[in-house]
């Protein structure tokens, strides 16, 4: 192992991401090379200093009065934003279209479901209210918690970029997320009636995966 290779892999070494064989090679090299050992010492000192920085810093003044002055009554979101970017729109439209197509295909390919699942095309497309599923109707299975946490975080990222989106894009993306949520609710209902169905489990998992993929692509396109 050369010094150049060590420099290249030092981050992964201190982060504990190397495989056993490469780790051993690194150890041997560092033992014999004072220059690389000094680089390692520097890096570890930097990481220790970074880890010691405060995670919380209070602002120099109380921001609440200004925040409170900007809080309007809590109402459901309405209205659409300005059109801004074709790349954004294309990416979001492509992602949404892919979801609808893939989901429709997947649902059609499940002939042995014990409880019929309505085609996604029957979902109420005209209702684009961004609150995707009412809280009372959202009763996930315990095994879905990981997906739900993931999508919630991705939705938070989406919220941060939502105002940059074209109205058409928001309509399509949120309309399709709503369709996915409607499909999830139906699959979940079917799974409650037939909890041993591996097909339903796979379908539920695949549908969650698609939702995660859509949100990741949308947030990535905005970056």
């Amino acid at each position, binding site marked *: 192992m050369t010094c150049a290779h060590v420099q290249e892999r030092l981050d992964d070494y201190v982060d504990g991401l190397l495989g056993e064989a490469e780790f051993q090679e690194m150890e041997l090299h560092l033992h014999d090379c004072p220059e690389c050992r000094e*680089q390692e010492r520097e890096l570890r000192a930097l990481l220790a200093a970074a880890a010691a920085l405060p995670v919380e810093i209070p602002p120099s003044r109380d921001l609440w009065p200004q925040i409170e002055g900007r809080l309007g009554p809590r109402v459901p979101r309405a209205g659409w934003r300005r059109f801004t970017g074709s790349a954004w729109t294309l990416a979001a439209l492509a992602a949404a279209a892919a979801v609808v197509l893939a989901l429709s295909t997947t649902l059609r390919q499940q002939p042995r479901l014990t409880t019929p699942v309505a085609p996604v095309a029957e979902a109420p497309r005209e209702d684009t209210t961004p609150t995707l599923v009412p809280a009372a109707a959202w009763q996930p299975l315990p095994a879905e918690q990981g997906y739900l946490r*993931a999508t919630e975080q991705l939705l938070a*990222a989406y919220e941060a970029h939502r105002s940059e989106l074209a109205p058409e894009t928001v309509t399509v993306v949120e309309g399709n997320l709503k369709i996915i949520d409607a499909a999830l609710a139906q699959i979940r209902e079917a799974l409650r009636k037939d909890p041993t169905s591996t097909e339903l489990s796979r379908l*539920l998992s695949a549908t969650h995966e698609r939702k995660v993929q859509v949100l990741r692509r949308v947030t990535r396109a*905005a970056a």
Partner: protein
Amino acid sequence: VSFVVQGVEVGLGRRAASSAADVERQAREQALVRRAQAGDRDAFEQLYRENVGRVYAVCMRIACDTSVAEEITQDAFVRAWQRLDSFRGESAFASWMYTLAVNLALTERRTRKRREGRVTATDDPGAFEEPPAAHGPEPGMDLERALAKLPPGARSVFVLHDVQGHRHDEIAAMTGVATGTSKAQLHRARRLLREALRR
């Protein structure tokens, strides 16, 4: 029935401890969120007071400007109030709020860069890699000051990974960059910081 999420869950980083006190805190937080969702501003103020330090810290380190960080922090809480309906409680409010703030800070950074061009912080690593001025290297440059001089992309990833304790897949989910890009930015940030602190 079990499901595996492949590295998309975003939390508060490695520093988020898990204990009985945390469970109790989360239960209280959930109650506050429910009240805030019903329009209770006092409950939302409590959520603000409990989260503003962490939100402001990450905004400050990404923006490197006190007034901008304060503005983003305010925007983040106003946005959270407006979007509380979309928070279902499957993750901690602090985590949701933090992600919202990070994304706003990153968006503001991109907007400012487009608006003002290159100022003190720049995506051009050469600006940070220039040799010291004629009067010699600046002594006592601490980590926060060195951080502020990093290129914004590298700085954001370093803050999220090495200060806040997030994994690369979490950073990718938050920022929209590929995991490989996040790793490359971290490598660059660490190298530049070591060089800066060596001077």
